[in-house]
């Protein structure tokens, strides 16, 4: 009798498996052919540039020879890491990189969320569109252009700010020779350039919220501010956390394009502006040793991975809806 029950159970399980198979990966591909086809270019790109390049990480541990190639070059152990970690500024530069990234992340998210909520409250649709587009515009400017705009504002001789200070009877400031202003300058410029794009993401999330929640709150006599605090922000939080976790992966990468365009080779400002990427670029541009460059990239990638994993782990414990995996 027991045997018969077992057989029945096995048969049931097999059937269930077969049913599951029908809804498996292959059947999903069959069902969504076009969608998967559209995924191919991105998947190929990721495969070629994301995975096929992984073996090249070996050069971080090799005395790389262009002639001998990847596998035949001699092993160098951790020698290629030394130039950075033995430099007097290594920890200061790592600190700068993380500090600036945290400030960028915090202020960009904060301003983008506030702006998205404010724009969502605008009733005039034409004004809303113009405002949205205007905030988005800086995102599409290159850092080189942004640099000239910044120079036009804070430059010593021709800068608007110094002209205004002089006109008001104040003393002009040589910003390009004074490091203490540069953390604020970098954060302000980064936020100005990127909060428009972040705002669009949050705005898209806000517009998908169930309107009935707001209607119910209105019936209960809630003000717009109360609705924002009790409905919009809590519902927006998973998106904010998710984007935050994704940004954590870049915590050890300095925004080279930005910082090099704005600061360049101005050694006076390095104390506040030098990040891992600018330091490595400056150090290796004459020598151009790919092994040393890869060693630092590998360090950044591992730290980035740990940051994403750590941020996700904490989120999963404290705020499950926001976790990525």
């Amino acid at each position, binding site marked *: 009798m027991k045997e018969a029950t077992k057989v029945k159970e096995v048969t049931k399980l097999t059937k269930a498996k077969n049913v599951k198979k029908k809804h498996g990966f292959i059947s999903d591909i069959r069902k969504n052919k076009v969608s998967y086809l559209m995924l191919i270019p991105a998947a190929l790109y990721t495969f070629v540039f994301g995975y096929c390049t992984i073996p090249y990480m070996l050069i971080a541990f090799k005395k*790389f020879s262009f002639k001998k190639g990847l596998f035949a070059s001699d092993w160098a152990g951790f020698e290629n890491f030394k130039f950075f970690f033995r430099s007097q500024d290594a920890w200061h530069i790592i600190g700068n990189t993380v500090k600036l990234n945290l400030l960028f992340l915090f202020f960009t998210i904060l301003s983008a969320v506030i702006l998205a909520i404010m724009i969502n409250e605008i009733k005039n649709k034409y004004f809303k569109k113009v405002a949205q587009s205007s905030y988005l515009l800086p995102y599409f400017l290159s850092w080189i252009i942004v640099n000239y705009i910044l*120079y036009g504002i804070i430059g*010593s001789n021709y800068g608007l700010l110094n002209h205004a200070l002089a006109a008001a009877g104040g003393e002009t400031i040589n910003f*390009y020779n004074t490091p203490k202003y540069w953390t604020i300058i970098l954060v302000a410029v980064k936020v100005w350039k990127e909060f428009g794009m972040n705002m669009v993401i949050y705005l898209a999330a806000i517009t998908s919220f169930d309107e009935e929640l707001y209607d119910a709150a209105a019936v209960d006599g809630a003000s717009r501010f109360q609705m924002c605090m009790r409905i919009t922000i809590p519902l927006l939080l998973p998106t904010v956390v998710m984007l935050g976790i994704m940004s954590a992966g870049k915590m050890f990468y300095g925004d080279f394009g930005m910082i090099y365009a704005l600061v360049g080779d101005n050694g006076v400002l390095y104390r506040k502006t030098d990040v891992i990427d600018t330091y490595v670029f400056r150090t290796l541009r004459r*020598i151009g040793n790919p092994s040393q460059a890869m060693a630092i990239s590998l360090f950044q990638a591992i730290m980035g991975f740990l940051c994403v994993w750590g941020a996700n782990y904490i989120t999963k414990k404290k705020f499950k809806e926001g976790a990525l995996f």
Partner: protein
Amino acid sequence: MKKSRITMLLVLCLIAVLMAGCGKENEGKNSGEKVHIVYVRPGTEVEHNAELVQAINDKLDADGMGIELEIMYIPSDTFQDKLNMMMTTEQEFDLVCVMEDQKPFTSFIANEGIIPITEYVKNSENLQKYIPDWMWESATVNGEIYTIPANWCETADQNCAITIRREKLKEFGLSDPQTMDDLFHMCQVFAENWEGDNKPVVIPMFREPFNYLFRTLDTYPFTVQKDLIYIDQEGNVKDWLETDEFKQCAQFFRKLYENGFVPEDVLATGWSSWNTMLTGDFVWVDQCQLWDTEEIWEERIPGVDLDTIYLNQNAVQFRPNSFRNDTAVAANSAHPAEAVKFMDWVYASQENYDLVVYGVEGLTWVNEGDHSFSKIDPSFEFNADWMIGNMEYERYQKGTYDKFIEIMGKEKPDAVNSVILNFVFDPTPVSNEYVNCQAEVEQSIYPLKLGLVSYEEGYEDALARMKAAGIDAVVAEYQRQVNEYLGK
């Protein structure tokens, strides 16, 4: 259904485009018996490129060289990065343009990116004839020639001059400055008499040592490498920061800075020496800047009369370095012999040189006789003289300043050579210290050098940082190699 087919077709097209980009670039380029040579150089593809390269290939055919040339352009701003990438991924190419101020050929040797070409060079009659022996010595490491120097200009006394506005000196009743005090006085007179909204400034090319100031010092001549290493003519090596010569130059620039003669934003990325020069509001600009014709400068700054002068006329003519640009053969080259053979062919006749450097006569340039020419499009530049040129065949644009030709194009046989003219430093034994010291130059040396920080206030800190970066180890290794080179 129809819509989904169209979408599928579009996606397939997208994939096809993506895959097309992954193709090997040099595939199928061998035509007949000819050997295909790829020359990699900085810059973007020039107008008429196909016609110009075809003209070169036709001449190569006519001369029975059995070589076919392809020029691969890499934008200048990403040149070194992309070149590294191409070498790392073992992409095949043959000749590569080397810019010594960006990445010297010795750095390529360290990673075996370029190969020895001694044997081929010795069989190249024209290369031997038009590139002097002392230049070949500078291209030799461990007994092997690694690169073909561009002997396009005389390096003696080339970058130890300054460019001034001659008409302003006349207007203000000034004679040519000879000392640092004269220079400071010149700044004061300019500032007092200048008409216009902007005060005239000094335009320093601070990425190179201030060689023009060195002429005014008692210990001249000496050589300064990358603002890091000082070498006197006895072969003594010192940390440049710790020398009295550095101190004198830094204090002079501090005086200029405090009096407002150095642009406050000189280190800012938005500040440009070139744009500042174009305003005409300058007292002097480092080095010889008479690059274009007098007519072009008249258009840029009406009434200008540019001139290049030397401080301390009694100082000896001095040749601090050998060559600044060269052409090497890549390690991945399948045809190193033919690559060198092509270079030898370039210097075989004026006709070959003209084709490779200036393009096709009548299409891109007009022959004005006596080693001069006019460009049909003033902005056009094919494979510039500075990349691949040679003084034997070089042409100057009609209307070029005589002074420019005198400085760049006339050999100075009496010039004193730097004791390390043909010495090539191998940083491998102190590579970590060397790269850190180079990085430190921008942070510690430039602000002092330009007077942005006073020498008295900034010296101790800068020295401590240079020591921490490993300057002592670099100096010791440099001294060891120089001693070995000089046979001490």
